[in-house]
């Protein structure tokens, strides 16, 4: 049955790729899509972009999620919220537990070994300094504890690993105060966030900085990969960049971490997976009202750290706006395939590898043109290096509505993880309650009227369409 679904999906994809889709996307069994906004915030109209997700291997019920969702009460309390689920993602509550005035300017998070410990890296409002935070119990009303802070940092991206004695925390970030313009950095804590060391991972000359995205991925054997953009030259708003990956084979606990993967061209740390790619840096609405310029994701097979997947976006120059590439290494990053997937006019690539080796590939793509253009969010997964893959369209929504309130429109990233036999993730999209926008089905807890495609507030009055975060789960291919 499942094989037939895959085959049908592949055939459909082959027939339709490059053309406007006419046939409704296939329905994949067992998929859940849930709007995170709870019923008591039915009146909200904010642009809840850039979602992220954290979950526990040991407790399927507890999850934390975030987005650019403001404290409903405003900034006076000096706190910003996270979403919390204690029923496996079926329902979510919003809790004001982050030390930031009303909202954050960036946020990612990851769990500790023992539920309900949570680590978070935020850019705090106001002033946007980096705050590295910890909650011993993210379900508690207590504000998360500040563990480290500094200014001049961009895009903290948190991953964790479970060591016997303490949580290890890896925060990829772009540190503008790093020497010599080599700003790609990983803040490493080997003691549950009590202390951090900033580890510089760029070893080559840059244009004065690296790209914003520095993405760690950790396997169970403590192998840590980090992907980053090696920005080498700029011309106007175009950046010429290398796509580089460093590796550390012992959890980055040594004196000179991230030196275990050299490039054969110069024998420097940081394997150059692609060189001299063209990055269109556009901090303005460019792709379906979204900005572009720093899409990057890396995922390692948690049980077999030899296998690692990498995705990034650049401009190929064949009329594309922004193109996502997906590649794989089976020898610890030493050699890489060519593109296993090449997706035009797409962004927000997120990767995860399940315990059985199936790779999940989440992305958001603009299809169609002008007023008929749509943001299509898909999760593809494959067991054979994308010779075949299953394609689940999670959402297909108008790209021109609602109008943007700020940037990012839907996010500079989204989130994909895996646990057991499920891929679990979050994405942001227009929240019009229209069943045709969600081919796998969707659950709203906020008040809606599907018959009239209207959002309603607590009194039943119509609420404007906005961007909401959506949680999803998709069964892993067996």
């Amino acid at each position: 049955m499942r094989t037939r679904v895959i085959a049908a999906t592949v055939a459909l994809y082959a027939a339709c790729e490059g053309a406007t889709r006419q046939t409704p996307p296939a329905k994949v069994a067992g998929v859940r899509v849930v709007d995170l906004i709870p019923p008591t915030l039915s009146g909200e109209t904010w642009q809840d972009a850039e979602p992220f997700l954290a979950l526990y291997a040991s407790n399927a019920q507890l999850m934390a999620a975030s987005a650019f969702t403001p404290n409903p009460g405003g900034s006076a309390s000096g706190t910003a919220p996270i979403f919390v689920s204690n029923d496996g993602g079926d329902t979510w509550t919003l809790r004001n537990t982050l030390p930031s005035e009303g909202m954050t300017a960036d946020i990612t998070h990851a769990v500790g070994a023992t539920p309900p410990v949570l680590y978070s890296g935020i850019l705090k409002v106001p002033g946007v300094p980096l705050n590295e935070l910890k909650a011993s119990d993210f379900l508690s009303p207590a504000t998360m504890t500040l563990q480290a802070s500094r200014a001049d940092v961009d895009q903290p991206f948190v991953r964790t690993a479970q060591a016997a004695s303490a949580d290890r925390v890896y925060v990829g970030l772009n540190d503008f105060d790093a020497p010599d313009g080599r700003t790609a950095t990983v803040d490493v804590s080997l003691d549950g966030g009590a202390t951090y060391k900033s580890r510089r991972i760029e070893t080559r000359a840059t244009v004065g900085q690296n790209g914003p995205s520095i993405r760690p991925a950790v396997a169970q054997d403590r192998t840590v990969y980090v992907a980053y953009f090696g920005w080498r030259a700029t011309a106007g708003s175009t950046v010429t960049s290398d796509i580089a990956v460093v590796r550390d084979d012992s959890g980055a606990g040594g004196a000179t971490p991230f030196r275990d993967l050299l490039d054969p061209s110069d024998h420097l740390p940081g394997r150059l997976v692609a060189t001299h790619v063209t990055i269109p840096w556009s901090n303005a609405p460019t792709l379906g009202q979204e900005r572009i310029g720093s899409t990057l994701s890396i995922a390692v097979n948690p049980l077999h750290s030899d296998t690692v997947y990498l995705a990034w976006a650049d401009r190929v120059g064949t009329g594309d706006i922004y193109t996502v590439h997906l590649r794989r290494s089976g020898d610890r990053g030493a050699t890489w395939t060519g593109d296993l997937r090449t997706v035009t006019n797409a962004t927000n690539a997120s990767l995860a590898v399940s315990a059985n080796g199936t790779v999940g590939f989440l992305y958001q793509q603009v299809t169609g043109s002008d007023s008929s253009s749509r943001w299509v969010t898909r999760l593809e997964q494959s067991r054979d290096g994308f010779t075949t893959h299953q394609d689940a369209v999670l959402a297909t929504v108008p790209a021109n509505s609602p109008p943007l309130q700020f940037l990012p429109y839907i996010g500079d990233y989204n989130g994909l993880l895996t646990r057991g036999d499920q891929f679990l993730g979050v994405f942001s999209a227009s929240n019009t309650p229209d069943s045709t926008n969600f081919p796998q089905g969707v659950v709203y807890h906020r008040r809606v009227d599907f018959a009239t495609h209207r959002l309603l507030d607590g009194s039943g009055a119509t609420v404007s369409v906005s961007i909401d975060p959506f949680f999803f789960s998709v069964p892993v291919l067996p």
Partner: protein
Amino acid sequence: MYTRSAMFLAVLLALPGAAALGQMSQATLVKQSDIIFIGTVTQVGAVAVPEVPASNRTVVVHVEQVLEKPAAVALGAGDSVTVQTAQPGSLKPGSQATFYTTGWIFGQGVAVREVGHEPGHSPVVVADQQAAVARARLGMNDAELKAHIQKAAMVVAGRVEQVRPAELAGGAPAHRTRISEHDPQWQEAIIQVQDGIKGAQAGEQVVVRFPTSLDVAWVGTPRFAVGQEGTFVLHKDSITGSPETVIAGRSVPAYTALHKLDVLPKQDALRIRVLMKKP
């Protein structure tokens, strides 16, 4: 503490001549609250939402009238709200009060943290209380604006004559080669002062730096356009690292106006003058 103050105030409010003191203290409660409602305690040591553990600090309140709430929040008469009280044992079943609270957990139901409460109400008092909260909020807004003005270097009514790229000194941190999605993309507005309310005189020109970025870090920050008129509350630029700029060949201080209260309608100039004269 707030609860005791509120009880004391309730007595004071009943006394002739106590309105001013009562209003001031109610303003304090209002200032710290974002959800204010009248209701009756139905259960003590209990909760109405599954996400909050019951404790000796939690009570369930039946809402009779919502006086203030954020637009996003779905809360109305007839709902049950879980309140984490400021003090255990301060509320009994059947207690009627106006609750001053901040939002805590929003899920299937709402849980709030108590800032304070004013005990007792009646159908007549509901309308009075609604008006009193509205007056207190207005008073708080005035107090907030006055404090804001006191911290400002300059307050002027005027017109934006020109908008230009910001001239930041080369060594300023914000001017270093730094490509980030959070880049403010500074510009400068040159304002012709028509009414110098604080720190300036009519006829002067002042330069105000403002971000043009659409990035989330700058959402809600005031923007300027040529021809725009208003009352502007200006602060010396301590953000960009380049405190001065140039106008007509002269080096002059640069200002910023990043708070929502920094750009007000032109007719607010009179209100500001009145506020500045108040003790």
